[in-house]
């Protein structure tokens, strides 16, 4: 069966003050129906831009090449009308900061029902009924009353839950969650993650979970993509990725991550920073920061090549990597 979302060799270039800036290079990824896929990487690696591309929300002047198919539809060939059908009804998005992503002057009820009425052709009463159910599903207390509330009357966790309810309202098949728990307390975060997993199990919803937190990745997702400087550098089943990484960057990310009773002094931060768009070195983008770099790494960016069962890695050296186990 064809995957629900099939992105192949996607490249995005944004207009910059000094000429076009290539942001995404040769990104390929798939998400199956009912699958929870993780997309991880440092800030500015192109995770969020991938999401924007899949919703047709790139700034004016952006150029996109490659292909992106969603449920048989070629996303990149859509006109305004086609995009409107996909957005909300096919692919929905939960933004990182729900405080900024909810309209401060419209009631939760209004924001829950307006696109339902467009996509599902519901009348006001049916939409309101479904909205109350959704709020109840995301465990917002007293949903009837919450419908009339404004976002500022909610706590941060409730706002994010409401944002998830809004994203789910028009029955999308794929939910892109862009760091939905980053701004929240750990306990609230856990509730949101459990909620997403439950929704996936109950409704067959596919979720692409964007995060910079590898812990979230391991707790929630079955497959993962590691992004670096606008490229996918490694992909595979999450468990294998995190216990036996094959790309030095994945290993370095794991080494820089605090966990358990580990002392702070044993954390290994990655030296340097990711290259700014347009300033990536000619070869492997990670090569300047990589402890295993060889002269051959500087010639051309390595392509993503198969590396064992369901796994691919973009590294020509493929050193033997030591990873601190938990």
């Amino acid at each position, binding site marked *: 069966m064809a995957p629900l979302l099939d992105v192949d060799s996607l490249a995005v270039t944004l207009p910059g003050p000094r000429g076009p800036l290539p942001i995404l290079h040769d990104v390929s990824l798939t998400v199956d129906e009912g699958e929870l896929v993780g997309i991880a990487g440092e800030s500015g690696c192109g995770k969020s831009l991938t999401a924007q591309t899949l*919703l047709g*929300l790139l700034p004016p002047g952006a150029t996109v090449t490659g292909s992106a198919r969603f449920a048989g539809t070629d996303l990149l060939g859509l006109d*305004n009308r086609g*995009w*409107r*059908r*996909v*957005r*909300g*009804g096919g692919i*929905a*998005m939960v*933004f990182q*900061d729900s405080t*900024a*992503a*909810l*309209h*401060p*002057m*419209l009631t939760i009820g209004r924001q829950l029902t*307006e*696109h339902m009425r*467009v*996509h599902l052709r519901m009348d006001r009463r049916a939409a309101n009924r479904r909205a109350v159910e959704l709020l109840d599903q995301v*465990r*917002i*207390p*007293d949903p009837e*009353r*919450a419908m009339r*509330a*404004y976002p*500022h*009357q*909610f*706590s941060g*966790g*409730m706002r994010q839950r409401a944002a998830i309810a*809004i994203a789910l309202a*028009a029955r999308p098949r794929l939910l892109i969650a862009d760091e939905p728990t980053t701004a929240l307390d*750990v*306990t*609230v*975060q*856990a*509730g949101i*993650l*459990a*909620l997403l*997993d*439950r929704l996936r199990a109950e409704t067959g919803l596919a979720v692409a979970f964007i995060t910079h937190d590898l*812990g*979230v990745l391991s*707790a929630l997702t079955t497959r993962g993509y590691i992004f670096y400087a606008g490229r996918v550098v490694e992909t595979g089943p999450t468990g294998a990725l995190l216990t036996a990484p094959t790309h030095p960057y994945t290993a370095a990310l794991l080494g820089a991550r605090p*966990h*358990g009773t580990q002392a702070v002094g044993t954390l290994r931060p990655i030296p340097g920073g990711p290259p700014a768009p347009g300033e990536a070195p000619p070869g492997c983008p990670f090569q300047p920061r990589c402890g295993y770099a060889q002269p051959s790494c500087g010639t051309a960016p390595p392509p993503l090549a198969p590396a064992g069962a369901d796994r691919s890695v973009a590294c020509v050296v493929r050193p033997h990597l030591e990873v601190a186990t938990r």
Partner: protein
Amino acid sequence: MTTVHDGEPGAVSTTASRLRPRRAHPLLVFLAKRLAITAGLLLGVTVVTFGLVNVVPGDPVTANLSDQALNDPATVAAFREKWGLDQPLWAQYLHYLGNLLHGDLGISQQTGRSVLDDLVRYVPATMELAIPTMVLALLIGTGIGMLAAVRNGRFTDQLVRVGSLLGLSTPPFWLSLVVLYVFFYQLGLAPSGGRLSTGFSPPPTVTGMYTVDAALAGQWDVAWDAAQHLTLPVLVLTSLTVALLVRFVRSAMLEVLQQDYIRAAYAKGLPARVVLRRHLLRAGLVPVVTVSGLAFASLLSGTVLVESIFGWPGLGQYAYRSATALDLPSILGVSLFVALVYTLVNLTVDLLYGLIDPRIRLS
């Protein structure tokens, strides 16, 4: 490392306390406070105006009496005594204030009528210009401003910005003359000035606005004639107000367009017109309301140049004549009215804020 469990135990109680329904009570407190402040403000206006008029070089006597009368000491003394000018300033002020508390604004030295009667006569004429101007300017200015913001940087936007700059730098009297030349002299489409053509008599007074009063009395020919007389001055005032509004609307909307919730609205698959009308307009309205309030108050205070050119007997003309004649009771009356207009408009603006943005609480 991440413990997964459902629900947030703390959320329930916080909602219950945060979702308290708003009571009417704080609104009344707010209004009472504002009225008290307004009263204090008006008192301040009387002090300042009284002081200023008596400080400026100029003598009401010379301003009002003819040369012949000025040569006759008895006439001058009689004038001074009649208007209380022979008394010390503080006595004059207290006298004025005492009368004011009884609703007596004094007698205009210019018209010989009570200032209150004068205001009742001139203010509606100005309102008849200000109200349609503001309604039109809001509709047109918001529309054009939003269009420019959405088309940021493109040709339409450039055109709107140049147009707005032109409008802002056009002197009102010049625009009035051009409009008169084109629409009255060349095309003969509109009357040259005044409120009614000769041969029509004003409708029975209800609001003082001829179009409304004529319509209320069923005198449709009078209403139509009065409306025609409105067109040119309203056209001039509207273009100037639109030029001002467009800049504010554009920058307010540009800021909102950057917000995540606008992107989120598009991401929900809503049609652009819904996003613009429901999400963008609502959020960009607060700064627009502020400027519109100021523009409306300024229109209601009378527009001297436009009123003069179109022979419109409004507050601006009355204020101008009172000021040149150093007609203290009239000047005070106009000042009080203008201060009242500004405070009331500001109060309305504040109440509108609360209506538009639920986060703005009355405090």
